[in-house]
């Protein structure tokens, strides 16, 4: 049952990852990416990290996917979509490199020998049980799995306190940086031929002008 479920999720996950990489249309690629994020969340559930699965859906599908879609809408190349295509020679080279690396990785994973007294990865076929009689001790892994929100909160503010505050600084830096990048005054172009049309090209067809275009066409 578990194994069948894993097989289905893993197959769909790999297929949607391939779809992301190969889809020509960027929004389609983004849609495949959303499916991939969702299937990764399913894998987290299979690993009994359901808090993480919810976070995955919240952050990746709820926010990152939206940002990527907005990014696509904001960089739509009006001249054409040639930049999204995959060149054939590059595809073959990339595919070969990928297959080679995958072979190496799978060989490594299946032939790993246990280090420092730990069992080899290949021999680990079952996960530790999480409901022993002593499972209610607060520090144990079992208690953490059964109430992961609490365990994450405790860890965040004790063991990972520095990382937690650093994450706050990182987020603020990202916000400030992104805004500073986005509101750069006017187009800055080195190419003189660009400068001529940049006034119309980069700034025109902004949404509000499309809006006024529409309202005038309706009247």
């Amino acid at each position: 049952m578990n194994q069948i479920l894993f097989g289905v999720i893993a197959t769909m996950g790999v297929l949607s990852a391939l779809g992301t990489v190969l889809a020509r249309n960027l929004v389609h690629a983004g849609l495949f990416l959303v499916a991939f994020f969702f299937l990764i969340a399913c894998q987290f559930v299979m690993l009994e990290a359901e808090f993480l699965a919810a976070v995955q859906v919240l952050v990746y599908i709820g926010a990152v996917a939206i940002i990527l879609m907005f990014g696509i809408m904001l960089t739509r190349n009006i001249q054409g979509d040639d930049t999204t295509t995959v060149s054939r020679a590059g595809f073959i080279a990339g595919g070969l490199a990928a297959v080679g690396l995958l072979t190496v990785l799978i060989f490594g994973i299946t032939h790993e020998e246990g280090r420092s007294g730990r069992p080899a990865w290949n021999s680990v076929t079952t996960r530790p049980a999480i409901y022993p009689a002593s499972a209610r001790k607060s520090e144990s892994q079992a208690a953490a799995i059964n109430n992961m929100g609490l365990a994450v909160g405790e860890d965040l503010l004790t063991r990972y306190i520095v990382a937690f505050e650093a994450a706050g600084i990182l987020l603020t830096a990202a916000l400030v940086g992104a805004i500073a990048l986005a509101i750069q005054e006017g187009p800055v172009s080195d190419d003189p031929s660009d400068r001529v049309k940049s006034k119309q090209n980069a700034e025109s067809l902004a949404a509000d002008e499309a809006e006024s275009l529409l309202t005038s066409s309706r009247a």
Partner: protein
Amino acid sequence: MNVACDWAFPLVWAQQSELDSIPWLKWIIVLAVVFFGIFPGIVAYTVWGERKVAARFQDRIGPNRVGPLGLLQPIADAIKLITKEDLVPRSADRWVHLIAPVLILVSAFLVLPVIPFGVGLAAVNPPSGLIYLIAVSSLSALGIFLAGWSSRNKYSLLGAMRAVAQLVSYEVPQVLSIVPIILWAGSLSMVTIFDKQVLYGWFLFSPPGMLAFVTLTIANIAEVNRTPFDLPEAESEIIAGYHTEYSGMRFGLFFLAEYLSVFAVSCLGTAIFLGGGTLPWPLTGEPVVTLGGGETLFAMLLLNLPLIGIFMAKVSLYIFLMFWIRATLPRLRVDQLMAFAWKFMVPLCIINIFISAVWYECVIRPSKPNYLLGWGVTLPLVVVSIIGVLALYRSSMKAEPVELTTGSRRRSVVRSVS
């Protein structure tokens, strides 16, 4: 308190061979009857109710031809929608065009299983229920974007971009105003939150609780795109917004999803602030715990029927509040909308988190709750923070029209920024 906590996780501590012991038949019946029978039925009659209520507000009668009081109107509407021609514009992206409404409807459905309608009546109880809930409810923004994009219609795309900007802006105050509840309940599980309210009374009854309830309600209304926050589908400006190019049952899916999410956010507000199916005063946990073990079906029913009744009454009131607001208020302007979310709601919700921590220290942490101290400290804090944030918001809004009318230069600067 321990009793309630132990009882709150009956599923979590189940056996390991869980996947082999799933009650498939029971679950399929629950799904078919409750999720795909009762809930869509409630939604259909919510639509009927809205038409009746809106008609009364406008001194009309509302639907009255199909059946007594027009009660068969939803069925007639469904038949009409389903027998309409299936039109997809030539230039649309067919598959994405189909996926978008499905995604929105799925997001509305997925919110419902974690809602505790009564004792032991949450379909599932994941330990991270609340974060799951906000995660799945944020899926609808993506669906709306895809609907607008795939239609390849300027109005659709414009409506979708507006809708997504609005949804993401109001999702922040929505998730922030849930934080006090988590703080007081000490859990992300919806069932535990319900239990705590059974033991200690509604979370609404405290100054930060009331403030959080109000902000949650405003954010909820914005999240389901209802007046005064219905800019994404403002008929007078952009036809029907992101679902302009949808007709027949494809439009029906959007319609169903909208009212289903109205129902879902009402259930959320009721379950976490209004004590679910309980009455205002705190009950002792005893009868709930003894009966809630659910030894006999009869005991379960006896306990749960009044609870479900009260729950549904509260949900109806909440939905009626939304109808009332819709019938009363005009639509906001887009700049007012965004500024209200970011300059008023978000700062207020952040401050409210700390006020609720104060309430926790005064009332919930001490073994003997000191309500007088709690009210005495937090009420002035709430009032002061509302006044302060409001003053900040108004001063920033007051500066704006001056810039817009007098300074065309200023406007051009801002525009070149975009």
